[in-house]
């Protein structure tokens, strides 16, 4: 979080510096400039959502059966993108097993499945909104990025099917515990990365998400990861999404014109472990 704030300041300084430079350098156009401005290129989508955040927060909306209504278009949580350890409680570290530390250090950005337009899986988010559609027996997440996909959460009292094939979003079953939607998901493959660093997991992954809408303008969630194949104990991450207004989910088919991967070198950010 502290680093995010620092980077926001740096970005603002970058813009100020660029504007000042461009005001004095009309004669220098065509010449190389000494340095860059705001290289956090992916920050553009996040900034594009700033003015769409709901400014007023009213009481939690409810459905006809009295449950909190989670429906809405929600902004992404930056701590669930580049490095999920940012979403832990302050001072906590990811309880990685030794092999998982090694993998986190060695994975390179060019090998990130998300960079090749494959699904982000859970809990990783993208810098684009997601939409929740809530019905009494089925809750659907429509996910704008990274490849324009969806999640289905069955809240009809059913259990996970036996003999699931491993896949990118697993099998999700939800129950209401008071005003909290508890989502239990298993049946994952081990192909997606938890974040841009490349924190790994195995097919033993079991995720429990707890969603609340404390007021009309915010969605809060806790995500507990239990993967005895890659982590020494379960751990919980915390996130919060703002309600977005005056926008809709837009198309984002990443594989349409993805020219980047061939030019990605090294690692986008170092692992902390």
């Amino acid at each position, binding site marked *: 979080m502290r680093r995010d704030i620092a980077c926001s300041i740096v970005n603002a300084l970058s813009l100020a510096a660029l504007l000042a430079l461009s005001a004095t350098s009309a004669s220098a156009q065509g010449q190389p400039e000494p340095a860059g*401005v705001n*290289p*956090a290129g992916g920050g*553009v989508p996040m900034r594009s959502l700033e003015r769409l955040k709901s400014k007023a927060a009213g009481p939690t909306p409810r459905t006809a059966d009295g449950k909190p209504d989670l429906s809405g278009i929600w902004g992404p949580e930056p701590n669930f993108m580049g490095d999920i350890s940012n979403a832990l409680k302050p001072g906590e570290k990811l309880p990685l097993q030794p092999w998982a530390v090694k993998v986190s250090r060695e994975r390179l*950005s060019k090998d990130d499945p998300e960079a090749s337009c494959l699904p982000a899986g859970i809990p990783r988010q993208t810098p*684009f909104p997601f939409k929740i559609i809530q019905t009494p027996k089925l809750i659907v997440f429509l996910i704008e990025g990274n490849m324009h996909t969806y999640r289905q959460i069955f809240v009809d009292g059913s259990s996970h099917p036996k003999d699931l094939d491993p896949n990118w979003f697993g099998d999700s079953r939800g129950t209401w515990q008071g005003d909290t939607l508890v989502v239990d998901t298993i049946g994952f493959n081990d192909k997606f990365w938890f974040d841009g660093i490349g924190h790994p997991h195995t097919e033993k992954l079991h995720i429990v998400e707890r969603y609340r809408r404390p007021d009309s303008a915010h969605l809060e969630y806790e995500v507990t990861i239990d993967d005895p194949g890659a982590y020494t104990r379960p751990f919980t991450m915390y996130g919060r999404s703002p309600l977005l207004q005056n926008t809709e989910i837009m198309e984002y088919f990443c594989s349409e014109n993805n020219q980047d991967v061939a030019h990605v070198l090294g690692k986008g950010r170092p692992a902390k472990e």
Partner: protein
Amino acid sequence: MRTKLGLLVAVVGLLAAACPALAHHAFVAQYDASRSMMLQGVVTKVEWTNPHARFYVDVKDKSGNVTNWNLELASPNALRRLGWTRDILKPGDKVSVFVAPAKDGAKMANARTVTLADGRKMVAGIAAEQGGVQ
């Protein structure tokens, strides 16, 4: 004045290079902001596509040699939310673009700001509050 400003920009650029990238690919693994430069030329093609909108610019050097640069913008959904439209850039337009070039030496770069033929400066990166247009 200009030297001091250049130094400020250099320092800020270096600091910013340490900040996280949040795109579908890691910015710092692909582009080198420390070698940012201004490109001037004529737009030859525009691709309003995902995961990035792109435009291509013919840039002539002092010897008259022309190089076609492949310049990356954000994705169309983000650009639309920032106030861009897909016809803001058109083939034949003369533009100046402040870019961070690819690390691997390809004639490819991330466009930070685009100054259009009519003088409007489009900020692809920061000015969400201004709708992306200064």
